[in-house]
């Protein structure tokens, strides 16, 4: 492999909301093609990091660069899977998936064929004309996946996308995300409070300290072989070694966040 390109770079970034400082002194670099997870106790500003990298929020201090260029406005090279339901409830599955290309001015004849490929790929054949409220939580997440991926963004942000799903659906969706990621080789920045999920999926795990004014406590490489078997990975010795290592740091922060709240 050639020298990795830098997809996302935070330079001494801080974000404050009025009196409250969410994150501070964040410097972080994500290589192109990497799967990086950010973990930390609740309310530590994980989502704030994603929102700044996505261009939905501006940093109060410092700067964010995307592929070497300073970011201003919405990050056009990125897709975003949100924690909450973000599908447009008044559009069908097909219309939701077509939305990105439609907004970018791709003729609908091309888009519809492409959308149907995606509908099949995420296992929703026969559901093209359903509305989101007619689907289960897992199916809605599949639509969101297709909606994001169809635009072929170079970077994908995910903010606890499977947090609301039951354990088994979640495991399946994680597997599908990994498969898609491996096939398309995109850069993923994934936010979760679940350390097991973070290690199972990622190349690298970043631990944030308890808020307010969270900073990065540590960055850990996850050198588990790919493709990964998510069903059994949690019982592997190598997984547990890394888990123990990262948990030592994360534990401190979780305890600290208890004290503060």
């Amino acid at each position: 492999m050639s020298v990795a390109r830098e997809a996302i770079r935070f330079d001494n970034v801080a974000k404050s909301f009025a009196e409250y400082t969410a994150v501070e002194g964040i410097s972080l670099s994500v290589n192109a093609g990497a799967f990086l997870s950010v973990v930390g106790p609740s309310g530590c500003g994980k989502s704030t990091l994603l929102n700044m990298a996505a261009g939905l929020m501006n940093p109060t201090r410092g700067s964010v660069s995307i592929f070497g260029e300073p970011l201003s406005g919405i990050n056009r090279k990125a897709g975003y899977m949100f924690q909450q339901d973000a599908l447009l409830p008044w559009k069908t599955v097909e219309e939701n998936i077509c939305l990105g290309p439609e907004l970018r001015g791709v003729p609908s004849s091309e888009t519809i064929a492409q959308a149907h490929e995606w509908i099949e790929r995420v296992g929703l054949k026969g559901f093209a004309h359903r509305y989101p409220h007619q689907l289960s939580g897992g199916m809605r997440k599949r639509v969101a996946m297709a909606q994001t991926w169809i635009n072929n963004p170079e970077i994908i942000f995910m903010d606890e996308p499977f947090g609301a799903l039951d354990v088994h659906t979640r495991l399946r969706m994680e597997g599908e995300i990994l498969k898609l990621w491996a096939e398309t080789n995109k850069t993923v920045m994934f936010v979760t409070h679940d350390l097991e999920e973070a290690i199972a999926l990622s190349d690298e795990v970043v631990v944030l300290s308890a808020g307010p004014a969270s900073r990065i406590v540590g960055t850990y490489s996850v050198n588990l072989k790919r493709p990964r078997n998510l069903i059994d990975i949690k019982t592997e010795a190598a997984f547990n070694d890394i888990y123990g290592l990262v948990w030592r740091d994360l534990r401190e922060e979780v305890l600290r966040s208890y004290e503060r709240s």
Partner: protein
Amino acid sequence: MSAPKRTPIVVWQLLLGAALLALWEAGSRSGLLDKFFFSRPSDIVRRVAEMFASGAVWGHLATTLLEAALSFAIGVAGGVLFGFLLARNRFLSQLLDPYIRVANALPRVVLAPIFLLWFGLGIWSKVALGVTVVFFIVFFNTFQGVREVDPVIVNNARMLGASERQLIRHVLIPSALAWIFSSLHISIGFAIIAVVVGEYLGAAKGIGYMISQAEGVFDTTGVFAGMAILAAVVLCVGAIVDRLERYLLRWKTRDDAAPESHL
């Protein structure tokens, strides 16, 4: 509710109506209710049938419906337009806020004589009255609807590449539509009430005028007949709006669809 549970309630509803009418009829026949003040259902039905048979009612009905339709159309257009404008422009909404409150607090009926002076006895004084009622209902609902768009959906659309204009078309309008529709039910009813009140206070045509004429000669049956026709019209129009709403808001679950109308 599921279909098998729905049928019985309709039967009960009809039975209740029939029982009340029978009670009324019996009361009036037995002399318990004075026929002069209360009329009786059989007379009212006969009168309504006569009015339609002679064709006398059609002109009045057409006038009232035209006035209501015009005030509804103008009121909705204005309400939606201003609702969007003020919801998207914070300065404008803050500037106009006290004036809108004052204007909305004003009982609309007191405007009727002024509109009569300004616009004369024809349809436009009634349309003006109807517009002042419809406008505010639709305005407040549109304003609320645009303001309460889920920010996650807005962010998602922006990440997918939506410009400001595309955001309005794909997110704000559909989201506001649910609110606007919940107001349409109510505003159609109020539009009809407003124009009838306008006609009642001074007109040469319309259901309200018909009722006021009947009242002038102590013709209770005529008053009730006018009311019955009015009620039927409001129900029919409501059913049409309901159909339209069911189609346009088919993406919503029935549970959280717009609230039932309170006409």
